[in-house]
């Protein structure tokens, strides 16, 4: 079974020393477990310097073909990304595979009045947007914002990362109402949650994600291999859904995604 990991990261993370320190460590662990590719961000873009972190992620990905860069963004396109054109140029030049948002730690609301320009761009590019639930405090109001974004930007694949085992009553209604809403497998660990989501909403809504090296990736590989769902659905979760989303990204420069 192929596995492509939508939720990985490299870099420092105080106060914890992560068990994978370098891209080489990560590739070794991926090979041990049979993970073919991982979408990575650099934690500097989250925890210290946005642009430095984004450049580090693309540089690492250039040197490690099994890694795909993820760009951390905020709503301020003009001030932080050289405007819409600057963002598009960066995304195309580095074949960014997804954009990741940290609304709580980066001090912005996901409400459309604030994120409309960013999400208009994401919609034009059909770019997957990863929203980090463990950082995102996931109050009821924030789920409201998530739902509104999904409804107002149906062409943007919105991926809630690390949804947590207590979240069914909030994420299931969004899964039911929004075809563009996805969750990843990291901490989708409540009893039979993978099976229940697959049965009720379809395996199309689940992306394989490990949150390595914050979490141990092997357990999520195993969770899918041992899931009580069809082989076809396992393949969708393990890699086909991610490949499908990737094929839909529109890169205005340099040709579309492979």
């Amino acid at each position, binding site marked *: 079974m192929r596995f492509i990991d939508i939720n990985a990261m490299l870099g420092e993370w105080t106060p914890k020393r992560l068990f994978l320190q370098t891209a080489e460590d990560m590739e070794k662990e991926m090979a041990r477990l049979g993970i073919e590719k991982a979408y990575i961000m650099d934690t500097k873009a989250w925890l210290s310097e946005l642009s430095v972190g984004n450049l580090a992620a693309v540089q690492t990905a250039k040197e490690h073909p099994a890694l795909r860069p993820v760009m951390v963004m905020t709503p301020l396109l003009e001030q932080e990304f050289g405007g819409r054109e600057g963002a598009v140029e960066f995304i195309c030049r580095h074949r960014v595979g997804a954009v990741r948002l940290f609304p709580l730690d980066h001090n912005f609301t996901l409400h459309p009045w604030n994120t409309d320009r960013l999400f208009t761009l994401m919609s034009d590019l059909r770019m997957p947007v990863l929203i980090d639930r463990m950082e995102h405090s996931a109050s009821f109001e924030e789920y409201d914002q998530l739902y509104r974004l999904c409804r107002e930007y149906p062409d943007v694949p919105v991926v809630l990362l690390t949804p947590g085992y207590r979240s069914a009553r909030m994420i299931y209604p969004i899964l039911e109402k929004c075809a563009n809403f996805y969750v990843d497998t990291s901490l989708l660990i409540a009893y039979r*949650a993978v099976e229940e989501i697959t049965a009720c909403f379809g395996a199309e809504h689940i992306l394989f994600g490990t949150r390595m090296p914050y979490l141990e990736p092997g357990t999520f590989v195993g969770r899918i291999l041992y899931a009580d769902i069809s082989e076809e659905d396992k393949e969708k979760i393990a890699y086909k859904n991610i490949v499908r989303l990737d094929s839909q990204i529109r890169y205005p420069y340099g040709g579309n995604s492979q």
Partner: protein
Amino acid sequence: MAQTILERAKNRESFEDLDIIDIHCHMGNYSGFEFPDAGIDPMMEDARKMGVRRVCVVAQAGTSNAYRAGNINTLRAAERYPDRVLGYVALNPHMAWEAEDELRTYYPNDGFVGVKIHPGAMQAKANCKGYRKIFDLVQAYGGYVLVHTWEDCPYSNVDLCGDVMKDYPEIPFVLGHAGGTVEGVKKALRLANRLPNIYLDCCGFDVTEHSLPELAERMQDPSRLLYGSDYPFHDLRYGLTRVLFADLDDSVKRGILSSNAEELLRRSPKRLKH
């Protein structure tokens, strides 16, 4: 050459041959959040598929004021799956005077192995008088104690556990979730390295911030590291695949999954019989 546990797991094999013991299970649904029907039958179905031989269970009501009803449910499960379901007697520190009756009722049954306490759910500090009364009884009647621990919790943090557990060196205590948070796991490791009656189980999501090999390496006596799933709050497969896919020698995995718990059971005979 025999396949490694990792290779077998990649091939999705069942592990009946390892005699796996899941030291930390609940049973039943929970009002706080939704998951599918989680009675003893679906649990045993999952356990059978994965090759988990025995599960140690406390029924959901056991961690509430309806704990006595929980004990009845645990007994029913143990009777329905003799030799495969091992029960914990749930006890209430606010009603510690009832504890001896409960132990005398359930301990003579071979299906019960010890006591489960949940200071957080009971809103009673792990070192309070009620729990000390319960531990006095366990000291007299045997078995071991599984304790829910979580560092952020004012009732079940590791400092409170350490304060009381040092006073009961003959009782094996299993720190469920190994302290829970990043800081909690560090404290739990220190406590386990200081007191030989402390065991850690490796379920609970913050625990995963520490890789399992790191936990095993830092424990001076890794034979006190145990597999637990926290079923059904967590899927039984989640905790199990964490061990199966870990970058650990198979001998260490076998210890975590089976022989360490076997030794704990041997070390914790009950002294109340029919």
